[in-house]
C-alpha cells in the first residue's frame, strides 16, 4: 500500500515504523516554490509528522503555503540561501529532540520511498549518514548535460575532499543526530552541498550511498543548477577553503 500525491507524483510505502518516522525530522528549504510546496510537504507528512519547512525569504507567496502545510514552519526574513536554511532547520529540529535529520528538496524531485529507505538504513544503525546516489540505478532520467556537470563535481570532490562518493550534489540526505550535531553548515549559498561533503569526510562517521531516483520535471529542471552556477559554487567553495 502506498500513499501517493497526484500532483507531484510523490509516493511512499507507509510501512515505515511510525516511531522511526516520528523521530526523523524532514528539513525542507523553500525559496519561491509556491506552486509545488504544499503538495511536497503534504506528501511527506503522510509518513513523517515532523516537517520543518524554512521559507528562505521567498517573494512569491511560498510562506503562506509553508505556514499552512508544514508542521514546523520557519521563516528567514531575508534570503540567505539553501545552506543557511538547512542549518536553521537542523538547529531547530535538534532543539526539539530530533533523533534523525533528513534533507529534502522543495521542488518535488525526490521520491518519498527513497527517503523512507534511507531513514531505515540510518535508524538501523548501519551508518550515521545516508546520501542519495542517483547514479547507482537507472541514470537515463538524468539529462546528459547534468550528468557531465555532476561527474565533474564528483571528480573535483575526490581531489578536494579526498572522499570517494558518486553523487556529491544530491539534496536527499539522512543524518543521525550524532552526525547532525557534528555538522555546521556555514556556506550560505549553493556551495553548502560541497561543504556538506567536506563535513561528511571530516566527521569520520560511517557513510552509505543509497540508490535514489531523481524526477526531472520541467519545473525542477528550470530550478536546477547550470554550468555557470557550477563554476560559481566551485569558486565560493575554494574561497571558503582558503579563507576559512
Amino acid at each position, binding site marked *: 500500500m502506498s500513499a501517493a500525491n497526484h500532483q507531484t507524483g510523490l509516493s511512499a510505502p507507509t510501512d515505515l515504523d511510525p516511531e522511526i518516522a516520528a523521530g526523523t525530522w524532514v528539513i525542507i528549504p523553500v525559496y519561491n516554490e509556491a506552486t509545488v510546496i504544499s503538495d511536497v510537504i503534504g506528501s511527506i507528512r*503522510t509518513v513523517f509528522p515532523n516537517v520543518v519547512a524554512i521559507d528562505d525569504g521567498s517573494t512569491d507567496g511560498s510562506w503562506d503555503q509553508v505556514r499552512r*502545510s508544514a508542521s514546523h514552519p520557519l521563516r528567514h526574513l531575508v534570503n540567505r540561501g539553501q545552506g543557511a536554511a538547512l542549518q536553521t532547520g537542523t538547529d531547530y529540529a535538534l532543539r526539539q529532540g530530533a533523533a534523525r535529520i533528513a534533507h529534502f528538496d522543495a521542488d518535488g524531485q525526490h521520491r518519498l520511498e527513497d527517503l523512507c529507505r534511507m531513514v531505515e538504513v540510518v535508524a538501523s544503525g548501519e551508518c550515521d549518514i545516508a546520501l542519495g546516489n542517483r547514479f547507482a540505478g537507472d541514470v537515463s532520467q538524468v539529462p546528459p548535460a547534468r550528468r557531465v556537470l555532476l561527474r565533474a563535481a564528483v571528480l573535483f570532490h575526490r581531489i578536494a575532499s579526498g572522499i570517494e562518493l558518486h553523487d556529491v550534489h544530491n539534496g536527499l540526505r539522512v543524518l543521525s543526530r550524532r552526525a547532525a550535531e557534528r555538522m555546521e553548515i556555514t556556506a550560505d549559498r549553493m556551495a553548502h552541498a560541497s561543504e556538506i561533503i567536506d563535513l561528511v569526510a571530516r566527521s569520520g562517521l560511517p557513510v552509505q550511498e543509497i540508490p535514489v531516483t531523481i524526477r526531472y520535471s520541467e519545473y525542477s529542471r528550470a530550478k536546477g543548477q547550470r554550468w555557470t552556477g557550477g563554476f560559481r559554487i566551485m569558486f565560493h567553495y575554494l574561497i571558503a577553503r582558503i579563507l576559512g
Partner: protein
Amino acid sequence: MSPFQIVLLVVLGGMVAFIVQAVVRGRLGRPAGAIWLIVLGVGIIASIDPNSTTALARRLGISRGTDLILYVLVLAVLQGFLIFYLRLRRVRRELTILVRRLAILEAPSNRPSDAPAPDAATGRSEA
C-alpha cells in the same frame, strides 16, 4: 605650478587635515593614521615635484614615474578589493546568523509536533 597641481594639493591637504582630526578624536588608530599620512605625504611630494617619481622609479629599475604610480595604484586597488570582499563576507555571515536566530526565535514551537497529516490527495492540511 599648474592649476591641476594646485587642485591636487588642496585635495591632498584637506585629506591630511581630515586624517589628523580623525586620529586626534580617536576615530582612527595611530598606526592607520601614520600610514595614511605617509601615503598622502608621498602624494604631496609627487604633486609638487613630478620628476621625483621618475627618480624613484629609476632607482627601482622602472623607467618612468608614471609606470611606478600605475603599478602602485594597481596593487592598492587589489588590496582594497580584498579588504572589501573580506568585510562583506563577514557582514554576510553575521547577517545569516541573525536571520537564522530570528527564524528560530519566531518559530511557533508551541505547536504540537504531531499535528494531523494533511489529506494525501490534495496535500493540504485542514489547519
